[in-house]
């Protein structure tokens, strides 16, 4: 831990001054000052560990062409920060087109996963029918299949459907992921039955109960599923590469791979590329995190 404490605390957003009596825990009790200090110290330590590596990459991407990025000892701050590398990424590859394709794929993946997983999760958790256990088992087994082994078979199926080289083909295999179905199932299982019962007495049918009562109560889990789905589609490399042939349809992850040139590698360019790939996800998460953590608070992901 001694390494971590070296991080200059000034680099972090300043925690509100600990004017003591104000600070309370989640149960409204006061927190002691030394305990608070210890907490922040630990938090800063973990912070350095989790985002440090990204900051290092960011710093490399901001270093100009005259700066030796392989110098030893390494320099943390660019001596003359420049956005030039980002411009060069945009000049080298049509980064906006690729980002747009990624966005389409990721957005579609979010919608299909939220809808498909919610429906299936509801069926597994709430509806009574023969074969329910089998259906649950299907999803559990699907989660255990090593995907590394089946990708060509997936491609062959896609070609038979005539969907190779389309963005639909990119989305389809992961559009209702087993893990998300199981997450939704658990969320529905944790809802008290009584609320649905009241609706039942009022004469609501299964579809109405699902839409009006069950679904709104698991908004948080939906946010979790949405983030997972977006992330998964955005980060995926091999599947889109195999399905797509036409460069105009490439997603960002594939496109950024062009930065690893055949003839020369430029670390700064690659670093700028990774930042471009990660930044939207971080932004998205920052926007959604309120729902996300609320969803988590619902007890959605609980076992």
């Amino acid at each position: 831990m001694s390494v971590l404490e070296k991080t200059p605390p000034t680099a972090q957003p300043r925690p509100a001054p600990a004017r003591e009596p104000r600070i309370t825990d989640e149960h409204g009790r006061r927190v002691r000052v030394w305990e608070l200090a210890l907490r922040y110290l630990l938090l800063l330590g973990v912070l350095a560990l989790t985002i440090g590596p990204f900051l290092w990459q960011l710093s490399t991407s901001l270093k100009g062409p005259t700066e030796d990025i392989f110098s030893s000892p390494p320099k943390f701050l660019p001596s003359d920060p420049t956005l030039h590398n980002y411009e060069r990424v945009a000049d080298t590859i049509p980064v906006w087109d690729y980002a747009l394709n990624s966005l389409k794929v990721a957005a579609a993946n979010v919608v299909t996963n939220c809808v498909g997983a919610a429906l299936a999760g509801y069926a597994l958790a709430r509806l009574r029918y023969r074969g329910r256990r089998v259906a649950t088992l299907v999803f559990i087994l699907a989660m255990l299949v090593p995907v590394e082994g089946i990708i060509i078979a997936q491609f062959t199926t896609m070609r038979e459907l005539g969907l190779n080289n389309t963005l639909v083909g990119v989305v389809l295999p992961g559009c209702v992921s087993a893990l998300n179905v199981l997450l939704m199932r658990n969320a529905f299982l944790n809802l008290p039955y009584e609320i649905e019962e009241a609706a039942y007495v009022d004469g609501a049918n299964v579809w109405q109960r699902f839409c009006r009562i069950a679904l709104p109560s698991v908004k948080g889990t939906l946010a979790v599923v949405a983030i997972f789905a977006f992330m998964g589609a955005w980060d995926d490399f091999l599947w889109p590469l195999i399905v797509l042939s036409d460069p105009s349809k490439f997603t960002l992850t594939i496109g950024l791979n062009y930065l690893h040139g055949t003839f020369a590698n430029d670390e700064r360019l690659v670093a700028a590329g990774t930042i471009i790939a990660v930044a939207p996800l971080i932004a998205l998460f920052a926007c959604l995190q309120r729902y996300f953590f609320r969803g988590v608070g619902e007890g959605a992901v609980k076992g």
Partner: protein
Amino acid sequence: MASPTVPGARRVRRQLPSSPWLFAAPGLLITGAFILYPFVSTLVNSFTDRRTLVPGEYVGLDNFRELLHDDMFWTGLRNSTLYVLGVVPALVLLPLLLALLVQKNIPGITFFRSAFYTPVVASIVVVGLIWVWLLDERGLVNSLLETLGASPVGFLSDQWLILLSAMTVTVWKGLGYYMIIYLAALANVPRELHEAAAVDGAGAVRRFLTVTVPAVRSTMVLVAALSSVAAFKVFSEVYLMAGPSGGPAGEDTTLVMLVQRTGTGLTGRVGYASAISVVVFVVTVALMLLVLRADRKEES
């Protein structure tokens, strides 16, 4: 997966006879067509000597017999098993502690929570590239060690250190993910329990052991199940740290890496690689059952 009983279920029954299947249909269809059906063909292939561009013939159990005599298979099995043993305890415990750390609503806490989740969001390739560069002999970690007076460590040249480095990356990337799962569980721990324990004069450690752990026990089981399956199927982290040939003399090869190495490319031995895939699948099913069984036993 733990499946609580549904006491009110029998009373809520107004549904069309077909609707459960309608609800489950999209999920089942996709999973069946794009995950299970391809896996069935993997099963079929495991009994053939199929290669990437040669259809191959039925060879019975030959592939499985060959596995028994393949040193690399045993190396893979050893490493994948070690990975489970190394990673799972850390991923069950550390995220729980982290969740406790960020649970209190102190100023700035949402920033910290989000920041801790960043590694989960970034793609594994990006993460791998960054870490390889950090752990290089002349990378950041080693130059920090040197300024502290220690001699540089060959994180990426020793077979065991490579495995350990890969485990570190897995844990690092998984921390935020499981932290979230624990936060969910912790939100449901009634505060009265803590207060009662505090009144009894229990210290932080004892409260953790007597209140927190029992309250989130089922979540710990879930985390153990998810992380052990993922750990046994580990590929990317080790591939990136150890290189495509699996570390010095291939000693860091994991089972899924072996699937990839033997089965891919234009000269891949698809049949043999499929046999390894089948073994991986069987072991993960067994792992899952084992974790759930342990859970049930403890419960009773």
